[in-house]
């Protein structure tokens, strides 16, 4: 192993060794920022990419596993069904680390059922939701996490309250529930590192603004109207891909525990982020749920570790499977003997 320098991690690798393919997402997309933080976290923890695998469903977020940890296996599955694939994959090889990336549509709408059952079974994985409240790939329909009364150009006003995935996770007895913002690199990275160290499902709901489609103002979450933007949107829709207007990724200054900051989105609108502080005890389930309810009423996003509990046994542990990964078992342990078959046959005669 190469001696560790400031530029190499415990495995003697530079951070660039953890990169993936070049992103094809829109310029300035918050998802790319999350990919970068996954790279940071895995590099800093000195994880061996050969023993990590990445899963995703379908959508913009679900494309991202191609853009980080290029030496890890990956499976881009079907829409809303990553949880079941994760369930099978983690049972088949319990020695590997699973990182799943999903979106708000993938998890909150089409995949809500599988999401809840994954949490209930405590499938060991880091489950990241890159939450932008819209369907990007199909040009901006509301997702189930969209704000109540939010307005979209073609789809009008969303009359329904949002599904809060963190709340759903706590209710389903997930033992690690956190929320962050894609433009807060430090918090994202630290939460990803913590999630990677947690046993069982660790849910990370990361607000990640869509630079192209979630640009409609007049939301109850303090979105202000960005005048010039409607014109830009039309331009974007009528120009071929690849010519999308260059945008800068949204980043925010560091902010302290307990502090609330306003973040200006691509459309000039604002959202409010409030970092949890020492008065919140993340081990208190009722307090965590109360905090989320209050935040909803005040129209702000609570960021940080919202709920953590003693890990429950994972699905694999509860199933009593052998220590050797099932995927690596040799024939001698998978196929019973000739005598065993003869015994069964005798019992049926």
């Amino acid at each position, binding site marked *: 192993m190469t001696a560790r320098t400031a530029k190499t991690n415990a495995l003697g690798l530079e951070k660039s060794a953890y990169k993936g393919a070049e992103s094809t997402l829109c310029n300035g997309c918050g998802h790319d920022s999350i990919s970068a933080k996954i790279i940071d976290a895995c590099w800093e923890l000195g994880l061996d990419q050969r023993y990590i695998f990445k899963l995703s469903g379908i959508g913009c977020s679900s494309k991202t596993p191609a853009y980080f940890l290029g030496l890890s*296996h*990956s*499976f881009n599955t079907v829409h809303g*069904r990553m949880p079941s694939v994760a369930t099978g994959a983690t*049972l088949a090889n319990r020695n590997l680390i699973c990182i799943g990336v999903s979106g708000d549509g993938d998890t909150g709408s089409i995949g809500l*059922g*599988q999401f809840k059952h994954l949490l209930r079974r405590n499938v060991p994985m880091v489950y990241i939701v890159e939450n932008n409240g819209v369907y990007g790939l199909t040009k901006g329909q509301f997702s189930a996490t969209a704000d109540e009364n939010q307005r979209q150009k073609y789809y009008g006003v969303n009359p329904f309250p949002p599904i809060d995935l963190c709340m759903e996770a706590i209710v389903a007895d997930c033992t690690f529930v956190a929320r962050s913002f894609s433009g807060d690199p430090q918090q994202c990275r630290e939460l990803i590192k913590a999630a990677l160290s947690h046993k069982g499902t660790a849910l990370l709901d990361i607000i990640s603004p869509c630079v192209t489609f979630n640009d409609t103002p007049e939301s109850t979450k303090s979105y202000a109207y960005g005048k010039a933007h409607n014109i830009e949107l039309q331009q974007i829709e009528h120009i071929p891909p690849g010519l999308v207007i260059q945008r800068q990724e949204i980043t925010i200054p560091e902010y302290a525990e307990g502090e609330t900051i306003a973040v200006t989105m691509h459309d000039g609108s604002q959202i409010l982020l409030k970092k949890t502080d020492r008065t919140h005890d993340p081990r208190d389930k009722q307090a965590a749920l109360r905090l989320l309810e209050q935040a909803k009423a005040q129209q702000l996003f609570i960021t940080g570790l919202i709920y953590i509990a003693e890990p429950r046994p994972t699905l694999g542990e509860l199933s009593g499977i052998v220590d050797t990964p099932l*995927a690596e078992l040799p024939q001698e342990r998978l*196929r*019973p003997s000739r005598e065993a078959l003869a015994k069964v046959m005798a019992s049926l005669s």
Partner: protein
Amino acid sequence: MCAVELRADKRTESGVLVNDFAIVAATVNGSGSQTANNTLVRALFKMGIPVNGKNLFPSNIYGLPTWYTIRLSRDGYIARRSDYHVLAAMNPKTQAEDIEKLASGGICIHPEEWKLKPTRDDITYIPMPVREMVKESGAAPGLKEYVANMVYVGAIAELLGIELAEIRSALSYFLKGKAKAVDLNYFLVEKAAAYVREQFADVPRNFRAERMDATRGKILIEGNSAAALGAIFGGVSVAAWYPITPSTSMIDALMDYAKELRTEPDGKTTLVIVQAEDELAAAGIVIGAGWMGARSLTATSGPGISLMAEFSGLGYFAEVPCVIWDIQRMGPSTGLPTRTSQGDVLKAYYLSHGDTRHVVLLPANMKECFEFGWRAHDLADRLQTPIFVLSDLDLGMNLWMTDPFDYPDQPMDRGKVITYEDLEKFGTWGRYKDVDGDGIGYRSLPGQGPAYFARGTGHTEYATYSERPDDWSKNMDRLARKFETARRLVPKPISHIEDNAVFGIIAYGSTDAPIAEARDLLKAANLPTSYHRIRALPLGEATREFLSLYERVYVVENNYLGQMAQLLKMEYPDLANRLISISHCDGLPLTARWIVDSILEKEQK
């Protein structure tokens, strides 16, 4: 065309039928008649008499009518026959119809309490004091209805000459040797037998079960158990499922056999079974496990197959091994969940959107349920694709007499897998690159070999995302090549060629039993036939050859649309005019009689 004399009556000179008749127990669903019926079947089997039991039951927990048919056949036929000679009429709601259908000269056993007014003078009524006997047995109130069935067991045993010792040991077998339970049940059997002996001594014993030696070395098993056992010997290590009739008992059997056969000395298991939240999740779990390198399976039925359509396409296109059992029942829609059918052939073959085609195995008997049970996993790994196995309710949930199963004749085939060490030898590697010309790339497993990006989207042979038309076409061409490889690897059809056959018969799956009998009947009427049994899709060259032999080939199947006939016409358009579809689906297994009649009707035109 001459008329065909069916089943020359095998009565002896004194009018007695020996080991060649059928018994029906008509009961109320949920009344616990299963032990009674299984006991009769096993006792007959142990007397060396070829026997088959079929349960025609409703989709209901309690109260609807259910019929259990037991056929004794000294010639060894195990198909359903629609007529019956001995009736245990235990269901007041259906007794009138049940009695009406009883063959002339038949025997009807019924509870005395009904005070039944005889409607026929060509049958014998045997009223039994069921309530009184049950009272006398001292059975706990909760058990009364359950043990009452033993009254017809005892009556039938006495009337037919089934040895009581065999009844007792069959009871002990099903009640797992629990002495108290065996004693209680057997008390009623004996009581009923003695009652019939005394009260109905003068009733002629025209239907006799006589000891033979035709079941020596054979076993009795249900298809779902055979399938589960096959999977166990195929090394399945992840199973996921969602309860659905008639597949549930396959998973139940898998759980039982896993405890017995796949538990290691430390008490841990090498087979994990997950009850999923629905069939979509069950399919996702087996795809996830297969991608990771475990051998995985799910078992379902028609509606579940519909829900697995999207994942099946992913498995086909990302090339992930897994095994999907479809224990077919009647559709469309919820259909008749407890009735058999072969209605999912086209659906399974083409399951999923886009240009998807699958390998489908078609077991016809218990040995094939077992053999395809393990072989499906070898094929899945070798071909890197989901393998469908189409059984049905008739095979899956009925007790069949069969020769014991053969131990797998080859080691587990894990197919082409590349490890980190191999990569150094290979130099370069493309997951979907056709190095060997058989359309199958080298797959790599997480944690064990070099990384690639699996996806259901367009990809190059190096597994990178691509929307290029040439990449797409090349990939589809390779998948077509792989399908040709599958054609060569799947179980071959079995042909029985008669030298002077006038026409051919093609069939698959559970219709094999009635076809065997139908061919004997046709042959006896001077109509020898050749028979080609398809055991898998895609179809192979042997099927074309068979079609080329005869001007008329009847395709017999248990569905409404004649699905295999349609598939054959698509596959062999130049021979399509030879194909005549004989299909029927009413919830019951086909009978030899129906097959013969249907073919003759067409032949006489």
